[in-house]
């Protein structure tokens, strides 16, 4: 499979994409090194996509998501949202992080969801409250509306963060391994709930994960990145998980894309 580095003329992409990532190289500095996290990565995200960035640790997928979030600038290439170059963080791209401490501990669940609506959207208290309630209902936390975050479980905290992101109705919702710190049972439930939410409102989602299984469940389109530095290995369409055989085959294919060469190397050696 050829690796597209130049802008592509894909017939399927006749509709203008929502987010365009073009030849993006990302570097960050450590104490004595300049590390290249991704090298000339290009892809498009369309409206209502559930676009997954998948790769082993060290492939720069989180760094890439943070660049889309506007937290760091590309050394090469360009990221555009609705045609506008991304230069800084903004409420049109809401982030959901992996860490449970992303909620403001001094605010209750509803206050956490209301806060960005008030400060970034300039809504009145009543408007924000009304909108927040809708989304808290959606993530099934109605009973915990007035609880403080420290009284919630990890899964509930992540649901609040998702409600907070969705309530802003951003152009794109960015999720950085949001379920990675949860136990397996909760994670599975959260994945189902996320898909249910997507089915209700059809938001655009960009989702980072290192789990092939999660990528297939959550995504409709999967960008597979190779490690050190991250480069596009493949861009695949996902399959419904209900089709167990297709899902199994896709998982094997991704596995081969990521680790195939390595395995061969081992068997020869």
């Amino acid at each position, binding site marked *: 499979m050829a690796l597209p580095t130049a802008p592509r003329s894909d017939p399927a992409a006749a509709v203008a994409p929502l987010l365009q990532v073009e030849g993006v190289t990302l570097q960050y500095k450590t104490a004595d090194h300049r590390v290249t996290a991704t090298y000339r990565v290009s892809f498009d995200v369309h409206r209502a996509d559930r676009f997954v960035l998948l790769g082993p640790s060290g492939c720069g997928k989180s760094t890439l998501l943070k660049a889309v979030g506007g*937290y760091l600038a590309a050394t090469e290439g360009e990221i555009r949202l609705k045609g506008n170059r991304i230069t800084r963080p903004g409420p049109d791209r809401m982030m959901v992080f992996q860490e449970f401490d992303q909620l403001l501990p001094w605010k209750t669940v509803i206050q956490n969801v209301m806060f960005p609506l008030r400060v*970034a959207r300039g809504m009145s208290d009543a408007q924000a409250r009304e909108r927040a309630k809708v989304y808290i209902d959606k993530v099934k936390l109605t009973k915990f509306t007035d609880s403080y975050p420290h009284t919630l479980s990890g899964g509930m905290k992540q649901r609040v963060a998702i409600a907070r992101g969705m309530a802003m109705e951003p152009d794109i919702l960015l999720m950085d391994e949001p379920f990675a710190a949860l136990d397996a049972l909760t994670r599975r439930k959260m994945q189902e709930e996320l898909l249910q939410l997507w089915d209700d409102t059809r938001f655009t989602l960009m989702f980072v994960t290192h789990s092939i299984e999660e990528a297939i469940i959550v995504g409709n389109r999967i960008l597979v990145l190779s490690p050190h530095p991250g480069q596009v290995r493949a861009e695949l369409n996902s399959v419904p998980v209900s089709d167990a055989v297709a899902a199994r085959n896709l998982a094997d294919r991704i596995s081969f894309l990521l680790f195939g060469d390595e395995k061969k190397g081992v068997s020869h050696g």
Partner: protein
Amino acid sequence: MADLPANASGKLVPPLRPELERTPIDASKLGEIQRTLSMGDKIWGNEAVRKFSIVIVLLACWQGYAMYKSDPLVIPTAIESHQALFRDIISGEVLVYTWYSIQLLLTGYAIGATLAAILSIAATFTRVGRDILETLTAMFSPLPAIALVPLAMIWFGLGKEALIFVLIHSVLWPVALNMHGGFRSVSPTLRMVGANYGMNPLSYVIKILFPAAFPSVLTGLKIGWAFAWRTLIAAELVFGVASGGGGLGWYIYQAKNTFETPTVFAGLLMVIVIGLAIENLIFRTIEVRTVRKWGMQN
């Protein structure tokens, strides 16, 4: 079939057991699950009760020793000292002195804490600000406030200004040190969350940084308060001599001059009572309503 401890190749295998499934019984039928503690356990479990008993024991020791010595000029009994305190509270004399001290304290405290906030915010956003703060705290933090009293007298004379100057010095550095530490330890995730909302720097400081660092800020304010209160009483003892007026420190000094030892003790008791009241009523209340309620401190 009997379970064999080992398979054919001699390796240990776990025994094969039948599976089972059960339905849990309703909890209400299980009998007692939780029991209320006995009255004695409850009382002794209360921290305030335990600490208050310690105070009672100390007072009893004091009373006993003073009665045994029976030299009221050197060590009056606990009862005499408390009588002197109540006498001056009822006459209002000690209250006037106390109010004078507290007014000064609040002024110095407010100015000191504000300056500390400005320095810490500057230190959080700029490298120069951080260098300034770190250098200044390193230089002035070890300098006892009381050592500045002579200089304060030269600069500001014998008025309130000199005392306020000394108070600011005693509050500023510990508060700035803790605030800055608190700001720096705010998690990167929370910072990114704040940045995500596109807030301006001022509203970011007030709405994210300050509350997120509140446990450290509160610790700084508590330490600053303790420093300020001690410094103030000590400085008043020195100042009182010169200016012939002032607060609780001066009250103690006067009583010493007229050998009213019970009144000296009454003054000291007042200093302790105010200290305890601020710590346990004001700071404790703030703590319970903020950092503990938010689960940021246990």
